[in-house]
Structure formats: structure tokens, C-alpha cells
């Protein structure tokens, strides 16, 4: 129990901070998405000029928003699941069941991290995006196309964060199975708008 808590508390600390940064960037990404699409509409109708980049830029932001904000939802129990069986079982069996479920999730995530790394560093990532540019030097005289790997990185980062959260959740589950629920660091409730 002591060892579990000793591993859990630094991980919990790191996750809290990483996810807070993720949410902050996510908030900016959502705002930028709206701005990009509004620019698209305004340019098309008011200035009669269909811009090529807002579509891709907004998708870029949306992917990063997903990668950076979904782990927060996972950590706070916001992933949709049918939890009737877990609620019906006695406490010990129920925590063993959720341990099993977390291990299955972890398996999915670990494989996803491996594939994600191969994808980002692989052939597909070498291509450039169609219309996004960044300055190639300090004096802004040269502009280079954003590589696709920057976009693909979003979900890779997301999967890594999800894995970290998953490990934290497994440790929390073990601690509470051994009766140490009151010693767990508190997690805030998920604050979601509801998609349905």
C-alpha cells in the first residue's frame, strides 16, 4: 500500500499539471477553430475570396483539442460505459472487474502508442499539409509548409496522456481495493455539457 501510494502521488501530480496545460491549450484551440471558420465565411461572402487554409487550420485545432482534452474526461470518469454490472456486484468483485477493464484499456492504449509513434515518424508524416505554413527562419523571409506529422502528433500525444491517466487509475483502483480509499488524492468531478 505504501509503495502504491508512493508511486501514485507523483504520477497524480504530473497528470494534474499535464492535463491542466492540455486543457488550457484546448481552450485556445476551440476559440481558434471558431475564428478560422468565421474568417472562412466572411471572406467568402464579404470579400468574395474563398481561402484555402481555414478548413485545414480548424481541423488541426480540433484534433489537438481532442488529443489534449479527452484525457481529462477519461480521468474524471467521463467516458461512456454501461456500468450496471459493476454497480450490482459486491464491492470487492466490483473493484476486481474495474481493474480488469482498466487493464484491457491499457492494452489498447499501449498498442496505440506504438502504432502512433510509427505513424508520426513514418512515411505518412513526411508529407506536408496542403495549406498551412510556418516561418522557416527568424526574419520571416522564408515560409515552409507544416508537415503532416504535426497534425498526427495530436492523437499520439492524446494516447500517451490517456495511457498515463490509465496507469494512475489502475493504481487508484489497487489502493482502494486494499481499503485505502480515504488516502487517495481527490479527483474533480467531470464537468461536461452532455452530447446527447
Amino acid at each position, binding site marked *: 500500500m505504501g509503495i502504491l501510494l508512493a508511486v501514485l502521488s507523483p504520477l497524480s501530480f504530473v497528470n494534474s499539471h499535464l492535463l491542466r496545460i492540455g486543457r488550457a491549450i484546448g*481552450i485556445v484551440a476551440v476559440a481558434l477553430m471558431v475564428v478560422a*471558420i468565421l474568417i472562412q465565411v466572411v471572406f467568402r461572402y464579404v470579400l468574395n475570396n474563398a481561402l484555402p487554409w481555414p478548413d485545414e487550420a480548424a481541423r488541426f485545432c*480540433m484534433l489537438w483539442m481532442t488529443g489534449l482534452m479527452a484525457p481529462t*474526461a477519461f480521468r474524471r470518469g467521463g467516458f461512456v460505459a*454501461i456500468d450496471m454490472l459493476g454497480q450490482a456486484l459486491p464491492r470487492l468483485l466490483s473493484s476486481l472487474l474495474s481493474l480488469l477493464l482498466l487493464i484491457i484499456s491499457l492494452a*489498447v492504449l499501449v498498442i496505440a502508442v506504438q502504432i502512433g509513434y510509427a505513424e508520426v515518424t513514418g512515411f505518412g508524416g513526411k508529407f506536408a499539409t496542403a495549406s498551412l505554413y510556418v516561418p522557416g527562419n527568424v526574419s520571416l523571409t522564408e515560409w515552409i509548409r507544416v508537415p503532416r506529422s504535426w497534425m498526427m502528433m495530436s*492523437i499520439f500525444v492524446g494516447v500517451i496522456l490517456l495511457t498515463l491517466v490509465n496507469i494512475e487509475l489502475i493504481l487508484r483502483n489497487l489502493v482502494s481495493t486494499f481499503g485505502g480509499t480515504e488516502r487517495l488524492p481527490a479527483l474533480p468531478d467531470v464537468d461536461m455539457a452532455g452530447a446527447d
Partner: protein
Amino acid sequence: MLIWFLPVFLVFLMIGLPVFFGLLAAPGMLLWLNGQERDITLLYRNVYNGMDSFPLMAIPFFMLAGELMNKGGITLRLVEFSQALMGHLRGGLAHVNILSSMLFAGLSGSAVADTSALGSMLIPAMEKQGYTRRFAAAVTAASSVIGPIIPPSGIMIIYAYVMGESVAALFLAGIVPGVMVGVGLMLMVRFMADKYDLPKAQRIVNPGQSMAPVEFWFSFVVLRVNLAGLATVLAVMAASGMGFAAFSTTVTLLLFLIMMVLSHFLLLRLRGVVSSDFRIVCKKAVAPLQTPIIILGGILLGVFTPTEAAAVAVAYALLIGFFVLHSLKPGEIPGVLNRAGITSAVVLLLVGAAMAFKTVVSLSHAPEIMAEFVLTLSENPLILLFLINLLLFVVGMFLDAGPAIIILGPILGPIFTSMGVDPIHFAIIMSVNLTIGLATPPMGLVLFVAASVSKERVETIAKAILPFLAVEIAVIFLITYIPALSMTIPRWTGFAN
């Protein structure tokens, strides 16, 4: 062999694995057992490519617009407007609850948002008037399912994307079924009002309200622009229907100006008919109710795509929240963005996983195998539609509408379209049925929210909601067997064949 991923997936789902992981773990496992390790990479790619989509962006945007609209006095304005229209009937506040849900449905695409916003306001008000709390909570929950049926609708965006249909067509097809659910519930309230002697309410709750000049002039102009715009569009359509050549921009503009003047005088004439309190309540509802007009009008006239319409709705919500109604504070914006971002991130991951799942569904020939099985039950599409509605209803009891739709759509959709059911019609059957499932026990998201808002037990609400569910089930069967109910508007506007 690969087809076994479906039962494996079901087991995962039943033991409580989050849907996102289940959608990937089950097909992944079977691909691995089948020696198709390479296709597991394909799963990952499909998750990514599935999320990298312009139409899907409408989900965060509509969520954001709904959240922004929800802040400040907009809910109150809609409720007061509904009450001015229907409060004087017997069972007044129950009618108000349903009508507010229908109006709210035009601003937000979510039943959960509807329940929490309207429930926290109307359930205490209904209790004060002598309704039981369980009845108030049941009416709120039952009417909230209209939220995702009347456009905009998060569920329909997801369905349209996963199944490759047009979002606009689905939105338009949802209008009549949504109104039918609302009217059906009102009829049931009317019936119960006679039986249980439900009270009437006043039409005007807060008499003697005033309006800030900005809002007054805003609603003054917007109302006339809407009326004139509608009249112009109808006139242009009538002219082209009668064989006249298309009007030039100048002529159309002139026509619009004439209509503006005409609508001004029409509204002046209407002024005398109603009390000044009634007028002010109506004027205060103009700004919020402009949102569905912008969204639907924009999509119908081909001005923008649903995604752009959603972004414009966000801009409009910000504009009126800050400058017209002063209901928003800059400090609230990050919180709203955060909520909308987190919620849509979960939905997007789910949609991505569903796209990956869908590839395995087609690789495994699941729809063909299912279709063969289904056809052994009956070859009559009418009976099969009945059975499918039963299946969807049972699934809806256990699973939320969004996940259910992305899991079942790719499997069931192809079976029925190959039997000649219009894909849009089938989409509406699925969406309406599964949305109503949000209010059915034992697992109904809307029931849970209604329970937490009203502090009443879920089981009690689940019992009180039964008469309303009966109405909703009747609506499901009506739209299943009378395709014209959902298909007329999209066909008439050219968004469906």
C-alpha cells in the same frame, strides 16, 4: 471468423468497458487472432482519419453555441415566452415545459442540456403550483428528448458523418417528428389535466418588465427583417413556380424593402390586439429564437454548410450575449470553452473509434450475414421495421443515443437501405427511437439528470414518465410507417430524393 468481433464487443460492453475502448479492443483482438496484425495499424489510422473531418466540427460548435445561449437569461426568456402563449391552459406549466423544450431544441442539440436548464427552473415552479415533483420531473425528462430531434442535433451530425448522409437532410427531416413528439406530449398533458384536475397558470409571470433600448431596437429590426425575408423568399419561389424569369438582385432587393414596410404595418396592426406585457415578453424572446432561424435559414438557402452555420451560431450567441442582452461576462468564456471542448473531445474520439469499427464491420461482412439472418425472420419490410424498432428501443434502454447510433448505424443501415427504405428515413427512425431511449429506465441519461435536478428518485420518475413514453412510442411508429412525415420537408427543399 472475424465476425466474432461482434459478440466479443457485446461482452466487453456488458461488463462495463468504456465504449471507446470496446470499439477498438474487440476488432483488434479478432484481427490479431486472425493473423491480420497489419490491419490493426489500419484501425489506428481510421480513428485518426475519422476524426480529421470538417463536418464533425459542427459538434463542438453547436455545443458551444448551446452553452453560451444557456448562460444568463436566455432560458428564462424562452420559458416566459412559452408561458405567455400556453400558461392559461389547464395543466399550464406542463404545457409550458413542453413548448420551452421545443423552442430550446432549436438552440441546442442536446437533451441533457435541455433537462438541466429547463428542469432547474420549471420543476420548482411546477411544484409551487401544486404538481407533484415526480410529475414535474417526468414532463421535463419526456419533453427534453425533443432536443436532439428538432435541429440542430448532435446525434444527427454523428449519424450523417458515420453513414455518409447529408447533415442538412437529416436536420430538415427531424423537424416534423420533433414537433409531433411535442404536440403528442401536450395532448397527453391535456388528457391528464382533465383527469387529475391540473391547475392553470398566469400568462404573465413578471408584469411591468422593461427592455433596454439596444435590445428593443434589435428585436424591432430583426422581427421585420425575418418577416420580410420570408415573404421575399416565398414571392421569389412563387414567381419561378409560375414561370417568370429569375429576378435580378436589384428587383429582389426592392421586393425585400417593400416587404419590410408591409411587415412593419402588419406588426403595428397586431400591436393593439395584445397587452403590453405580452408584447414585451414576446420581444424578449426574439433575440434567442433568432438562432434556429440563422441555422436553418442559412442551411436552407445554401448560404453556409452546417459546420459554418454552427460557427455563425457561436458568433451570434457571443454577439447578443455581450452587446444585446448583456447576459455574458468575459470571465465566463474560458469555462464555457473548456466544457464544450472536453465534451466534444469525448464524442470525437468515439466517432473516430466508430469509423475504425465500421471498417471491420465491412471487412467481416457483418451486414450481409446479419441481413441473411434478418431475412429469415421475415421478408416483409414493415414487420422488419417493427422488429428493428423493438431492438433499438431495448438498446436505448441501456446505451446513450450517440454511442448506440455509431455502433448500430453501420450494421443496420445497409440492411434496410438494400430493402428499399430511404437512408434518411431510416436515419430518422434510428435517431428518434434512440433519443427517446435517453428517457427510458434503467439507463437513461436524461432520467438521471432529471433526478439530480429535482432530487427525486430515478425509479419514481421512471414510473411517472410511462404515459409520456407511450405517446413517444406511438410517434416512433407513426414516423416509421408514414415516411412522408419525415421525408416531405427534405424532399420539398431538394435535400433528399
